[in-house]
């Protein structure tokens, strides 16, 4: 079942990206990219490596994080529930089958498209700075997210209030096998779905001069992802707010860091470039 779900995911997201490239990026940027891709790869290489290392560590650590969290034993679920009450339940009272289908699609496909597409869109720009900022911001999101997940145990609304329907999992049980590989149920604070989506939205707004249409789409999708996490009963409103906060911090820090150290410059890029040309 997992293989089937993954294949479907890959196909749908690829189609979405191809459409996105055609609509937002355009022929001329692609032509330039074919000429300049080596330089751009080199410029983005250091931060990409850092991101890959963080992701690898993250997925390895995720196995042990729950055990560590239970040793620390800071359980925040009741505090969250005490503050926001049954907001998610209220949100779900407006559920319709169409909305459930829409938000389930957004939560899985829309989210992955939202994260993957800007990597390609920014790669298609001669100025590599947006790309490097984006990758740095992703990295920071994962780092801070992992730290927060380690220290804070919080169960999502569907675990506290089973009357909150786990809409997606009950309507489309096959997605359970997909998200089970990624998520542990004690890791809901903050919403990493929201923070990564908001990161893309923030950066898309900043690059609105280059990609005006994409900025509008990214902000719309970002908002939909944030709502979907609550609508589907996966996150509390407080998780979403914390996720937006995390995104803001990550984007700000990423801007500072990318401006300060240009790792690519400190490497002897000429020699590397020559090595690549020789191939």
């Amino acid at each position, binding site marked *: 079942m997992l293989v089937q779900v993954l294949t479907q995911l890959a196909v749908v997201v690829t189609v979405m990206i191809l459409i996105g490239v055609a609509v937002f990026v355009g022929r001329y940027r692609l032509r330039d990219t074919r000429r300049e891709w080596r330089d751009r790869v080199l410029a983005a290489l250091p931060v990409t490596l850092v991101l890959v290392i963080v992701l690898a560590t993250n997925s390895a650590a995720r196995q042990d994080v729950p055990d560590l969290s239970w040793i620390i034993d800071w359980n925040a679920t*009741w505090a969250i529930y005490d503050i926001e009450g049954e907001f998610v339940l209220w949100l779900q009272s407006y559920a319709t089958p169409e909305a459930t289908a829409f938000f389930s699609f957004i939560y899985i496909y829309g989210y992955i498209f939202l994260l993957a597409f800007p990597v390609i869109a920014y790669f298609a720009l001669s100025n590599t700075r947006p790309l490097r900022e984006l990758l740095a911001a992703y990295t920071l999101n994962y780092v801070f997210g992992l730290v927060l997940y380690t220290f804070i145990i919080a169960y999502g609304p569907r675990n506290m209030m089973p*009357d909150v329907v786990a809409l997606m999992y009950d309507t489309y049980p096959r997605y359970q096998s997909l998200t089970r590989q990624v998520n542990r149920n004690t890791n809901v604070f903050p919403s990493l779905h929201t923070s990564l989506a908001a990161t893309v939205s923030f950066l898309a707004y900043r690059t609105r001069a280059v990609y005006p249409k994409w900025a509008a789409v990214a902000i719309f999708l970002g908002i939909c992802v944030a709502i979907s996490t609550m609508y589907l009963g996966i996150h509390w409103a407080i998780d979403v707010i914390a996720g937006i906060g995390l995104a803001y911090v990550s984007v700000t820090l990423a801007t500072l860091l990318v401006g300060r150290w240009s790792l690519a410059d400190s490497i002897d890029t000429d020699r590397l470039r020559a090595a690549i040309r020789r191939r």
Partner: protein
Amino acid sequence: MTAGESDRDVGGPSRRSLLATTGALIATTSGCIRQTRSIVNRDGLDQLSLTITTLPADGDRESIQLARELETVLETVGIDVSIEMRSHEEFLRAVLINHDFDICVGTHPGGTDPDYLYETLHSRFADESGWQNPFGYTNLQVDELLERQRTVDPDQRDDAVAELLDAFAVEQPFVPICAPDEHRLVRTDRFDGWGEGHPATRLGYLDLEPADGVDRLRAVNTDARISENANPLMAEYRDQDPFVDLLYDSLATEHDGDIEPWVAEDWTWDDGTLTVTLRDDCRFHDGEPLRADDVEFTYRFLADTSLGASETPAPSPQYRGLVSAIDDVSADDDHQLTFTATTNEPVAERALTVPILPEHVWESRSEPASVPGVQIAQGTTEAVVTDNWPPIGSGPFRFDERGERDFVTLARFEDHVSLRPEVDLPEPTVDSFRVQIDPRSTSAIENVETDAADVTTRPLETYVIDDIEERDETQVLESPSWTFYTLGFNTRIAPFSNPRFRQAIAALVDRAWLVEEVFDGYASPIAMPVPAAWTPEDLAWDGDDPTTPFLGTDGDVDVDAARSAFEDAGFRYDSDGELRVRQ
């Protein structure tokens, strides 16, 4: 842990010292200071503030719902309530091992025989960790009744149990809520013979008749713990699951309430002595022979996992009550053992159902567990903390491989006694048994419906049962249940130590309404924690609890009646309607 405690610790002394200082300034004579002291040094009563410890919906959808309904009810009678959700193993660790809770809501494994109450309630177990007296209940009269039912002549046991239950009804050491109906979904096109043995035990998976060409049994299990830990002694990871049973043999096995021979060929009872004969040439999965010495070791080890090396015994957190029925075991030769029992025959026979542990694997686990630089609790032996991979037993299936939180595969143990032509026992009929972990009932059902699994090993959550479509090739299997949902008090701390308080709480639980509301009707409300056959008529559920009927209707508490109940029990309300108690 309790909020009330910390409030007092923080607020009390500072307020007291402040007043005392002011008092000292005003008071000029010593008599006045003495009176000030008398006034100031009296602790006030705070609002009762308690935490309900329970499981999140992913672990147990019904428990959190019960806890939330209970929260609502307790709030209306002036108690400040918070809920703490813990994962399965952390819930059991908090309640059973560390006794770190006020009130807990969850399932109790119960038992087909009322003797499990001895383990659950006897005061001699109040300080131990495990399923033995997790509630810290102590009452000498109840102790006596618990002992009586396991020592009287079997003919008089009914009466002894009835007397014990009378005391239970008054004392309410814990409040049994309901016994859920067990439903599982099975595929009938690949296997026949479902339900011959109870699917929560080994017998549910033996003697199944596979269709032609089927050599693999595929189960889907909604609880990931079996892929994380295979230690039969660890209460945190064990539940009512058949896997320990399939990996580890026992001398006898329970079938429809009877204790029948398993690895033991037979036994004789003679005035407090059980003489047990083992079957010939039994082996463990690693090829070592299973000798009478291993059996003797098992009983010694379960009684004290430190094997006498620790200053105080370190008994196993599981099987404590069963093993306590045996005073002494000795291996007479390779095939024969003599058990000296402290109980009557029916209780002593049950002691034969514990898993047989290989001495050569477990003996070294009597050492104290250690983590560098950390002080470890006394009595923590390696045996009660090891993950036990690979599990080496002598059962009909042996461990093959696993993926954590993903799957566990077992393979048929070709040397198992049941596979010998001369032995007539239910046997493993497939080469391999794969258990897929899938945390939700809905996806477990989809697995069976799409022919990715043959059986859901754990009972399905009640909210999905109405939605299951029966098809030609699938069938919903209903099985009797002896587990039950319960509200447990930590009777070590006030006010839960007060039976009057517990009675008042018990009267706030509308079991009939909860069964409809939370279990969609797929459960039976119960007043007593033992199977119906053991419940005397005057204590049985008769539409309401015969001793502590619900104070209200349809889940709504009659607040005035509830308040009076607490006031009659000696507790006080303040003008805001808050229940004030000394904690």
